[in-house]
């Protein structure tokens, strides 16, 4: 049962990266908006994430809640070990979300719009890096406690995972935006960004891998030693290349699927290599798990909640992503 819940946890994080991560990525492209269609790029970003970012964000809350219900000791250990990056991540989340709605409310006033837009986009850059640092730090297997106080774990590997996470977010956002915009020139802008970021993501993945060999040897030996994780990583690169090719040929809807699938496999590969550890070297899916009664109830709650959640999500996406005429209506 604890393994099933761990799977749900990874699934929630994956969906968070695919949806909420892309919203952060959209912030990156808002910050880097350039060229003759600078404002049009920002308008497209505003339209694309406005109605859905709050919903996407809740996948993170769900992951946290599942973590502390089903693996309470792991939640406590993560919160203690990664106190600083998580605190800063929260500041980033608060500023990103608030600045986004402030900008929306003050859209007609150029100066405040610019000011809050800058805060929104810079917070969107910082938050995913911090989340990635936490994931990298946890994969490093360096987190040790002495009398409840955490020993230093930070290193180039954790930072490289942070930057890789940011790059993934930006890649997803550019890909989705390329599909969603109507204007052909604007679409080209985002295709250029997506293909460029795809290359950078692959490069960063290789850098992280090399750094991990030194800093996270046990993680790497699990990654390379397990056929499932190796297959996933190999498929990731194939799908990424396929995604770029499809995008260059204008088959962007298929490119979106290929790229999103490649990101799912990155996380899959990471999760397989991480297993059985929630936080190496001490906490595993088994020894950090809650009692069987709680696990069973959590599974029931997750199942029942999904029955409500997925139809609602379908409705949301149908209303806003089903057509291409994305006009901002009031609100």
């Amino acid at each position, binding site marked *: 049962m604890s393994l099933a819940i761990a799977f749900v946890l990874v699934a929630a994080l994956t969906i968070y990266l695919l949806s909420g991560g892309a919203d952060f990525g959209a912030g990156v492209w808002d910050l880097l908006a350039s060229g003759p269609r600078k404002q049009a790029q920002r308008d497209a970003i505003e339209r694309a994430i406005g109605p859905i970012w709050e919903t996407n964000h809740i996948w993170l809350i769900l992951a946290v809640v599942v973590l*502390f219900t089903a693996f309470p000791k792991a939640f406590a*250990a993560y919160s203690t070990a990664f106190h600083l990056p998580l605190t800063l991540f929260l500041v980033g989340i608060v500023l990103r979300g608030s600045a986004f709605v402030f900008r929306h409310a003050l859209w007609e006033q150029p100066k405040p719009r610019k000011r809050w837009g800058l805060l929104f986009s810079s917070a969107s850059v910082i938050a995913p890096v911090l989340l990635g640092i936490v994931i990298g730090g946890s994969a490093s297997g360096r987190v040790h406690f002495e009398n*409840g106080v955490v020993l230093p774990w930070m290193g180039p590997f954790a930072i490289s995972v942070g930057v890789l996470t940011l790059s993934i977010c930006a890649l997803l956002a550019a890909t989705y935006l390329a599909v969603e915009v109507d204007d052909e020139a604007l679409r080209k802008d985002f295709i250029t960004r997506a293909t460029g970021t795809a290359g950078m993501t692959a490069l960063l993945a290789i850098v992280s891998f090399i750094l991990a060999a030194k800093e996270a040897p046990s993680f790497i030996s699990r990654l390379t030693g397990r056929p499932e994780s190796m297959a996933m990583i190999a498929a990731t690169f194939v799908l990424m290349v396929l995604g770029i090719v499809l995008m260059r040929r204008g088959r962007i809807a298929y490119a979106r699927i290929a790229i999103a699938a490649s990101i799912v496999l990155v996380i899959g590969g990471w999760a397989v290599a991480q297993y059985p550890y929630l936080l190496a070297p001490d906490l595993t899916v088994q020894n950090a798990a809650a009692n069987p009664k709680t696990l069973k109830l959590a599974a029931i709650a997750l199942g029942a*909640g999904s029955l409500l959640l997925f139809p609602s999500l379908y409705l949301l996406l149908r209303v806003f992503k089903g057509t291409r005429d994305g006009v901002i209506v009031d609100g």
Partner: protein
Amino acid sequence: MDLLHYARAQMGLSLAFHIVFAAVGVGLPVLLFISDALYLRTKDPDYLELSKRLAKGTSILFAVGAVSGTVLSFELGLLWPNFMALFGEVIGIPFSLEGFAFFTEAIFLGIYLYGRSRISPRLHLFSAAVVAISGAASAFFVTLVNAFMNNPRGFELRGGVLTNIDPIAAMWSPSWATQTVHVLISSYQATAWAMVGIHAFMLLRYPSSTFHRKALKVALPVAVITALIQPLSGDRSAKHIAEHQPWKLAAAEAHFETSRDVPLYVGGLPDPDARTVRYGIAIPYGLSFLAFGDLHSEVKGLDQVPREDWPNVRNAHFAFQTMVGAGTAMAAIAVVLIFFAVRRKQLSQWLLKLLVVAAPLGFIALEAGWLLTEFGRQPWIVRGAMRTSEAMTKVPDLASPFWIFTLVYLLLGAVVVSILVQQVRATAPFDSGERA
């Protein structure tokens, strides 16, 4: 301040900030629903305009509520890891359910706010209803957790290890009913009184505005009904804690020695060392009657609890007095409003002015009531099972995060207020007559 105080201050600040937005997230959708339903029935454009204007404010308030709520879910671990490591599995289920309620709320709010021109009016109204229901459900589930902390059930604790964990029993602490009802009413009440105050203010400045008159028509019934039933719910809560959490009532009332025929103090400054209340007005037999409905009943005092386990009596007493004072004032105004309604009289100038002054009372009562329940539980995080100091993180620097969040929340609070003021100002010339 020592580390524990920084940790408590950061949690308190985060909650005090979030609770305002959370309450609005529960209350405003109901007002939106009423306004939209009235528009669909009457086709009066003022109601449409009202719901559009309210929706603008809602989008900001909900977003700030969502991100500040995220902070809280992490802070449970960042500040109180030992609490979560031990009790996460006991009390995680209502949190999980809250997660789904919150999901539903966010999804349908997105549809409601951004979808007006994309979906049918009935689906639009339906989404307002779903937002209102799921918002109430979120508040309900999260209050179950607080009820557990105040009056824990569903586990046995021996030598720092939990056995016989029963998450269902934990979820339904004996305090669940009184607390959830009181919290939900307070959310509707605080939101409605704030909205009444704002539109009363605009009506004083633009007396001929039909728009603001109709806005009052939407909010006033909610304000009046909640102001009248909340004291009843409060009375039920007081009787409940007199039996189940007597130390909390004792702290709230600064009642030191267990005795019969206990008076009720209005105001006053408790002196915990001398075990008396100075400068208060004593209503004879008041507390005995309030707690048990009998003038002579025995009320347990703080002497039942070891001195080191006392809550901060001054804080609890002050919070309690503030809550009851604000609640009483709103109830009194509600009675006057009913008198006006029965006589079919127009709201007079002085009454509108009174409503403007009363605008923050709902939120004052809500914050004070929450402070009371938290102060009154100290020094415990889970009453009788874990002390707040035992729950705390061992991270050495807690001052910096506290100051960072203080600055961020001050900034956000100021910006939200300034944007809302701009939005209210923009409604000034609105009137169906003027628009035609």
